[in-house]
């Protein structure tokens, strides 16, 4: 799967899509491949405050539990309800339908310092070669 240029990416394999002062956050296709079959997602409460680089929840797969680190700062305004009943959507469409949370950004420019699609693609290609 490609890494669209409209999203921004972290080294911990989360993405954020910024539209005005709203950020939509998810995990990348690389992350879901590394995790394997996702069985559970633990997300924050609506209204809670996120800080860039801090944990916002966990993704549990059949082989591991991983922290999800927020790429941006702000307040959680929506959760993806789809994931409670169908966490496997994360394996099917991690960068689209299976977004995790929506955030009202406190610093909309914050995401600009993250990697763009091309930079992230190079980052994960290098990682894959390490294996």
């Amino acid at each position, binding site marked *: 799967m490609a890494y669209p240029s409209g999203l921004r990416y972290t080294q911990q394999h989360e993405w954020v899509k910024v539209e005005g002062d709203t950020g939509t956050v998810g995990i990348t296709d690389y992350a879901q491949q590394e995790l394997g079959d996702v069985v*559970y997602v*633990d997300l924050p*409460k609506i209204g809670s405050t996120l800080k860039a680089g801090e944990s916002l929840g966990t993704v*549990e797969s059949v082989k591991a*539990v991983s922290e999800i680190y927020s790429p941006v700062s702000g307040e959680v305004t929506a959760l993806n309800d789809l994931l409670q009943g169908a966490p496997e959507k994360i394996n099917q469409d991690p960068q689209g339908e299976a977004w995790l949370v929506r955030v009202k950004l406190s610093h909309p420019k914050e995401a600009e310092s993250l990697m763009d699609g091309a930079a992230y693609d190079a980052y994960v290609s290098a990682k894959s070669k390490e294996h």
Partner: protein
Amino acid sequence: MRYLPKGPAERQEMLEAIGAHNIEELFHSIPDEFRLREPLHLPGPLSEAGIIEYFRARAAENARGYTSFLGAGVYQHFRSVVTDALIQRGEFLTSYTPYQAEIAQGTLQSIFEFQTLMCQLTGQEVANASMYDGSTALTEAVLMAERLTSRRNVLVARTLHPEYRQVLATYAKHCDLNVTEVGFTSSGQLDTSTLSPESLAHAAAVVVQSPNYFGVVEDIPALAPIAHAHGALLVTCITEAVSLGIVRPPAEADIVAMEAQSFGVAPSFGGPFVGVIASRDKFVRQMPGRLVGQASDAEGRRGYVLTLATREQHIRREKATSNICTNEALFALAATIHLCLMGKEGLREMAQQNLSKAHFALAELTKIPGVRHCFSGPVFNEFALEFPRSVKIINHALLREKIIGPLPLGVNYPEQTKCGLVAVTETMPRAEIERFAAAIRQILARPV
């Protein structure tokens, strides 16, 4: 699975593999003030004959030939020899934690059956593999409520066992948890008039024991909506598990913590016991401890596994739901065997006998001039009595009659100095209850 001790050569090899010079180096992170620099002061080794003699002498210190009316969280009940015979089988007695499901099916199945029985008894949907004892189960239930609600206050009934409250206070001190105690009414039940909407709106849970420390049964179906109306959970604690044979199960509670010693575990020195935690299915992710699930293998055959282990410490480290990473497997097994022997009818019959004998004792004792039941609420097999004289003095005189009398309540409830707690189980013969009442009558008739 075998455990073979390691010799000096293997130790050296292991140290080299991890790049350490000596074992001492592995402890360098422990502050010096907490290190023991001298040998432990232990008595020297004994011969086989010496050990047998030592334990014979200790066993002889037991109060044999005494009739005890003590309860307060530890109860004398019928125990079949079958239970002890079965739990002493090597497969159970020395088995290690069943991480490897393929070789631990028997252990896992016995735990699954324990969980099933605990759900059936408590009216809950999911129970774990057991906790250390009732007090730690209760504390874990409170911490679970804290995680579920993201609230840091708890409202705890003063009629919760005082030692359970101490265990909770010890955890609370280091967990940024505020415990507020809630009093009781003349019925001995929780004083709900003191539960303000403001306090409930900030509370993770209302914590109540039933039958409570005074033996009084609480109105759980009435308490649940009071807590739920303000987003608080209801945590119910049970210290006398046999009560479930006749008292309505706390199905309305969100989390149930229980001591299951009454199910086939000897009182011993006050332990080891077996704790139970049970809750609703939707809260299972926040449940502490080990959980066994039923699954099927590739050929569709039934099998058992440790499940949802990502809540646990060996996977999640400091982010685990609890620092408990074991369970009280042998005594959970004892409880399982005991309950299977008793059956539904047997447990009901046992509970009925407790109820009848305790109510007979209550009636006999309150016929004595000056003796009255402290509370008007319904009781199961334990009750608090007020005496016209100090409970300690009465007990001193009772000991001469080889009777261990009421537990003085003044120790933990300063306003109840003249009160004592009496437990009467199915093991108590009617003649002993009558002898107890006669002895108290005689003691109180003597001039002061």
